[in-house]
């Protein structure tokens, strides 16, 4: 009881100090990077969406590590949920779960639209809000809705994990192609003089690779969860 009361008092004092600091902060705001990004992004990176320009050109190094976090999490989960023993020794229990007909029919109708929406957000990442990570998540939900249509479909995934690592290596290779053309690493490899439509090929390519990689990762997490309890 004493712990809870003292905890509440301490947290309340910390909240008051935090709010006081917020009010003080308003006098010290610095808009240097704000103005820099607004004025230079379209010329430097050929993308109208500033956020895409930042994470695909100015800070590509960070995005590579963020993509690798997803890769490691997927490998870790796949390792943790596989049990020892041979694959064909186990008996799989597939119970007959009754999924309602309404859900199945609606999923069949919605599935192509969700796929198209996901691919739209990935490809138009440099022109409107969106991009690789967001579109990848939407694409993953589109693939996961097929679980309602046919429960046995998402259970083989050794090919998916292999593809994911291949995609990560190809992201690395495409990012470092700029060493040959511009003599710096991790930026756009098409030279600065060509028109913006050609320079955005780099952005579309990277967005596609990241999007497919993210969706494959999420689908393999889901199917390893499904497969774990079934032996």
């Amino acid at each position, binding site marked *: 009881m004493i712990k809870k009361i003292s905890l509440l008092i301490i947290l309340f004092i910390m909240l008051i100090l935090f709010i006081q600091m917020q009010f003080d902060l308003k006098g010290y705001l610095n808009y240097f990077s704000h103005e820099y990004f607004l004025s230079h992004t379209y010329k430097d990176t050929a993308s109208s969406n500033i956020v895409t320009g930042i994470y695909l050109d100015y800070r590509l190094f960070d995005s590579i590590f963020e993509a690798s976090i997803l890769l490691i999490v997927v490998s870790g989960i796949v390792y943790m949920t596989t049990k*020892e023993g041979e694959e064909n020794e186990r008996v799989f229990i597939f119970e007959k779960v009754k999924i309602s007909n309404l859900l199945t029919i609606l999923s069949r109708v919605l599935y192509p639209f969700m796929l198209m929406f996901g691919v739209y957000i990935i490809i138009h990442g440099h022109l409107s*809000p969106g991009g690789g990570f967001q579109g990848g998540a939407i694409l993953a*939900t589109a693939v996961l809705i097929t679980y309602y249509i046919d429960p046995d479909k998402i259970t083989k995934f050794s090919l998916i994990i292999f593809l994911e690592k291949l995609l990560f290596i190809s992201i690395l290779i495409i990012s470092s192609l700029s060493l040959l053309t511009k003599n710096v690493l991790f930026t756009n490899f098409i030279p600065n003089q060509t028109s913006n439509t050609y320079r955005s090929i780099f952005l579309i390519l990277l967005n596609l690779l990241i999007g497919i990689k993210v969706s494959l990762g999420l689908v393999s997490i889901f199917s390893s969860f499904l497969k774990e309890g079934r032996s």
Partner: protein
Amino acid sequence: MVIIANLIQVLLIAISISIVFSKDNTRVVVFLASFSLLSACLYFLNKAPDVALAEVAIGSAIMPLFYILSISKQREFIVMSHVDDDYLKNEKNQKGKGYLLLENFTDYYKLKLYIFNDAEKAELKGIFRKSNVDLIIEKDESTNTYFLIGKQSSILMNKLAQLVENDDKTIVVKVKESETRD
């Protein structure tokens, strides 16, 4: 516009307090999904549409799916039986003695019971590492007693042992899992 943003923030605080104080897992998952949706609205009102897209897709659609999947797997209780008489029969008018016992046990903990018969007896050593069973039922033909074999580290076994205290035809055996040393 500012009023809507402030209202959403107050609602977020209320939802997080109810997440902390609720006891049922399914309710917590629904609250988490609504928390994610409201914070995505807040991101959009603060002029950050990219973040709002990512938050909606992941926090409201994919994460509750994973949570519900793992909660439903936690609720299953899988029994593998090596006996082939009517100890575990599940028919309309007569249920076997073992089936009544297991039903009583799983109703107490609100689990779902799955029984399946394994004709050829699989190797028992280290089976809790290889497959996902929770309980194995065997029968000793000479003395006509039933053995219920489970993991020693599981706390559900204590309740099961308490339920079969009076019956000397049924014995609960706790097996220590084969742990690796280093």
